């Protein structure tokens, strides 16, 4: 059973979003997504200051099975990326909501987060998939 923390929002393409106190949001891929991908061997992250549109492919996660795009769950500007993943992509598998975070965005509009799925909705979504 995949872990779906109750304090996050979720996208259909399996990214999670956490709103931080400073108004930025942190995102990564969900436990369900990492489980489907299998052990990651490589993570490619965007440049800081890169502006992303919602649903734009902005990072790549690669496992021995497949390379998959990661999509920006909302529009914004990249303010920080998780450099640790360059040497330790396995953090995404081990701790997808913690040490395995991918990037921090300054959202164009924080309200966009509300349009993402709630934990219950996401749980239902992955069960129906």
């Amino acid at each position, binding site marked *: 059973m995949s872990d779906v923390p109750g304090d996050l929002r979720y996208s259909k393409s399996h990214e999670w979003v956490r709103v931080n106190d400073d108004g930025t949001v942190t995102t990564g891929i969900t436990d369900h997504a990492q489980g*489907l991908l*299998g052990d990651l*061997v490589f993570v490619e992250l965007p440049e800081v200051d890169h502006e992303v549109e919602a649903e734009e492919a902005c990072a790549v996660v690669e496992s*021995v*099975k*497949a*390379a*998959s795009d990661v999509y920006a769950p909302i529009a914004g500007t990249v303010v920080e990326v998780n450099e640790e993943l360059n040497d330790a992509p*396995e953090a995404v598998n081990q701790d997808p909501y913690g040490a395995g975070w991918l990037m921090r965005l300054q959202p164009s509009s924080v309200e966009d987060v509300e349009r993402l799925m709630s934990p219950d909705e996401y749980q239902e979504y992955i069960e129906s998939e």
Partner: protein
Amino acid sequence: MLIFEHSRPGRRAGVQAPAAEASADDLPAGLLREDRPALPEVSEMQAVRHYTRLSQKNFSIDTHFYPLGSCTMKYNPRACNTLAMLPGILARHPLAPASEGQGALACLYELQEMLKEVTGMKAVSLTPAAGAQGEFAGVAMIRAYHDARNDDARDEILVPDAAHGTNPATATMCGYKVREIPTLDNGDVDVDALREAVGEHTAGIMLTNPSTLGVFERRIKEIADIVHQAGGLLYYDGANLNAILGKVRPGDMGFDVIHMNLHKTFSTPHGGGGPGAGPVGVSERLEPFMPVPIVDYDGDEYVWLTEKERPQSIGRLSAFMGNAGVLFRAYVYARLLGREGMHRVAEFATLNANYLMKRLQQAGFDLAFPDRRATHEFIVTLKRQMKELNVSAMDVAKRLLDYGYHAPTTYFPLLVPECLLIEPTETESREELDGFVEAMTRILEEAAGDAGLLHEAPHTLPVRRLDEVRAARELDLRWKAG
């Protein structure tokens, strides 16, 4: 054991080694090496036996059923290889004048003609050295066509999300933005989404038929019309020609450019690791842009067409004719089959696939598209087994090795979770297919009874389950002594 581990200092192949050290005093001192190269020091018999044993450990079409989806691992007549190695072909220097080697040029010319006939295209260029390079040539021609008309607003190539990864990669390499078109649950391209996506930015679409999902694209005429009406060109990924060979022609469907993988359909196995050949066929409007060289016949002699005769050509993609050996094999194969033989390829490739598909379904496997007919291949999904028994497509693939079968393609296409893409090809007997069904049935029973057996497979091969993750994370390709 590696050949280096057989090595003993000072051991030489005594009989054949020259008695005296060869002198190298005519080489500049700065280029001479100071140490001896670290070559294995073994006897002749050790070398022969070592490599013979290694070759016996291989899985190959000559030794095993090899249903590697999308690779068309079928019987390739020995005659194709033998005749492609005739001295007049093998020993011809590529810079020799066309007058010396009219026979070889005639073969290439006729191959162009036969591929034109079988695809319904106006002209064919043989030079691309693989499918991916054929795609590159095709999209580069689309670009050259729009450029020549100063139609510069077209900066997007449409690619269905089921496409082989080389499609979006090709479009990107040619400087285009990739716009993905979703696939419906039944395996067809989402035509409504396509209709919404086309417009004045559309340079073209790259469509694969039979698609990578093991189904035929049913609304192809409609798709072709939508893209053409928007001013875009139609690219046909014909990598999997086996299923339609001699039956339907992309040219008749209105396509502007197609690439074929000769190293699938025409007597070179794709899963062999290369070399390959990915000729491109084009409609009339793309003909001036074709890659060179091309062989032409002026009524008297076979001649090369180069940049001189084709100033608008996208240019050269490789040295001379690309992988000429593969082209000659394909030529012999096409001549051996003839028109009727090609029909039979498609008929038996699809018959075998549909037979195997039904039997596996009866054996309890889930099909990705149970309502669709198979092309020359089909997809089984182990999503249910993964959920219920914690048995993955990889576990089944590895266990098949224990039963003496090369595994099907795993985890491709990406759209289908836990998938096996199975391509039996036209050259397998029914008994062979039945044997495979039996092995798959037993594996399914094992999965229910003792999943651990599958998790640890293979059990009978020289190496057990490899740690692919560690291999990818800590890439280390060099053997080092001690």
